[in-house]
């Protein structure tokens, strides 16, 4: 039984999620979510704290199962392949992630941080290719101009907002098909937040983005599609313009009006 407030996206989906349940021990945090995520679009996942939105996207790169006692059931098709049947390591190469708090590797330089996806796996790149990849990823993350003269300084010397863009560059450098962002601006000041938001809109030309936010305005600014989660269930999904103007479910409307959250 599919609730009525879920609209199929017009674009072809990259993720086709069917009846996804995610548990911590016996407690389900995500309940029976069925959803298609369109390719090369920004999909915002919003909802009040504890509604399962972070758990949901952590299922999409198999990070959820790392928590003790956690497991996921259902089907998550990434371009037709059920990622729950794949090796999680391979899934994570295709589905990158940016976290709430910037987490560059403290022992690495800016340059090495960008290449971490190769270096940590022991993949050696020819010098020119490495240089090219670093510049490309940093340009994509709108950080190149700020750090091009300090590529060999520690990544942790950058400001919080720069660190977060460095983490975005690090995720982009391995050329993922999807980029998951888990409240990427919640630890940043308004100026850095604006920069990241601009970047998100820019990036959807090359990569599909799924962004978790509990900032309603942010979802409105950056996303093409919006999913509203409540108590672990997907309540509403549709084009952001529709969800924000004519929500079909009364719970979505209450949330948008700030009645809870």
């Amino acid at each position, binding site marked *: 039984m599919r609730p009525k407030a879920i609209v199929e996206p017009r674009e072809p989906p990259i993720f086709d999620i069917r009846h996804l349940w995610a548990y911590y021990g016996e407690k389900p945090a995500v309940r029976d979510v069925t959803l298609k995520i369109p390719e090369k679009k920004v999909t915002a996942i919003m909802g009040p704290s504890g509604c399962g939105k972070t758990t949901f996207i952590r299922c999409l790169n198999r990070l959820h199962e790392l928590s003790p006692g956690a497991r996921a059931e259902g089907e998550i098709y990434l371009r037709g392949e059920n990622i729950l049947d794949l090796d999680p390591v391979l899934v994570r190469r295709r589905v990158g992630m940016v976290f709430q708090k910037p*987490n560059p590797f*403290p022992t690495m330089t800016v340059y090495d941080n960008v290449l971490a996806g190769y270096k*940590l796996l022991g993949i050696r790149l020819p010098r020119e290719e490495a240089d090219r990849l670093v510049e490309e990823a940093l340009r994509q993350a709108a950080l190149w101009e700020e750090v091009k003269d300090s590529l060999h300084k520690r990544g942790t010397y950058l400001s919080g907002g720069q660190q977060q863009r460095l983490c975005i560059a690090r995720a982009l450098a391995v050329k993922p098909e999807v980029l998951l962002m888990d409240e990427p601006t919640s630890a940043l000041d308004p100026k850095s937040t604006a920069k990241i938001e601009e970047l998100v809109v820019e990036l959807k030309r090359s990569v599909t983005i799924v962004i978790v936010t509990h900032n309603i305005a942010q979802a409105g600014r950056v996303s093409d599609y919006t999913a509203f989660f409540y108590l672990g269930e997907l309540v509403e999904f549709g084009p952001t313009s529709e969800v924000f103007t004519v929500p079909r479910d009364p719970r979505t409307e209450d949330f948008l009006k700030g009645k809870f959250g």
Partner: protein
Amino acid sequence: MRGLRWRKFKDRLALGLIIALALLPALPLFHILYGIFREGLSALSWKFFTCLPKPPGETGGGVGNAIVGTVMLSLLASFLAVPIGILCGIYLSEYARGKFGEVVRVAADVLQGVPSIVLGIVAYLWVVKPMGHFSALSGAVALALMMLPVIVRSTEEILKLIPETLREASLALGVNYWRTVIKVLLPTGLVGISTGVLVALARIMGETAPLLFTAFGNPFWNLNPLQPVEALPLTVFKYAISPYPEWIRQAWGASVILTLMVLGLNLFSRFLARRLGGNAP
């Protein structure tokens, strides 16, 4: 207003008492250092560091073989204890879930409490008896048993301090857990782990009891780990209970060297630990 003045007086009295008591533990340390240097400095000379001991009755001679022996025993013990200790610490911090991890953790704590002379006997049974003679190796085994729990627990604590988000950053790039441990967690915790190793080293360098029937002592130069070897604490022990005034003087001299080595290690590990505090992950 008598009450207020009385209370203020009591407050000052308590403060004075606390300061006096706080100075108390520092007092013996300075007294020991003062005593050792007063008695021992006269024994120090270039020859004392570089020469072999002379037989009783003759003056001169040095403890060069004991210095070399102590360094060799420390290196050998570290060689044995560091890899095992770090791997065990990694296991406890990253992999241990449930009962078995708890057992390992308690075992490490209990091992830390085992008297050092008992560890000497254990090394005697494990190494000396099968080999048929005393050796530096057996001494190193006894010392490694003392280092092990310190390294295990400090490695575990340091790795647990590393934020979870750093592990996730690596895993989310498609790096498996073991590589994450080796390439991300160990480098990040390197300073802390090294500090733990140095603390362990400082702890065992001055040990006498575990060496009595393992490394045994040796009045000659020896670099062969399978032969008995001299060590500074053994020299101090032997010389200090001897009846010869020259040896007793040299026991003080050897104490100076040993104390400086251990003190130096302690201060260095403190320096590292402070650096760790400065740019903790």
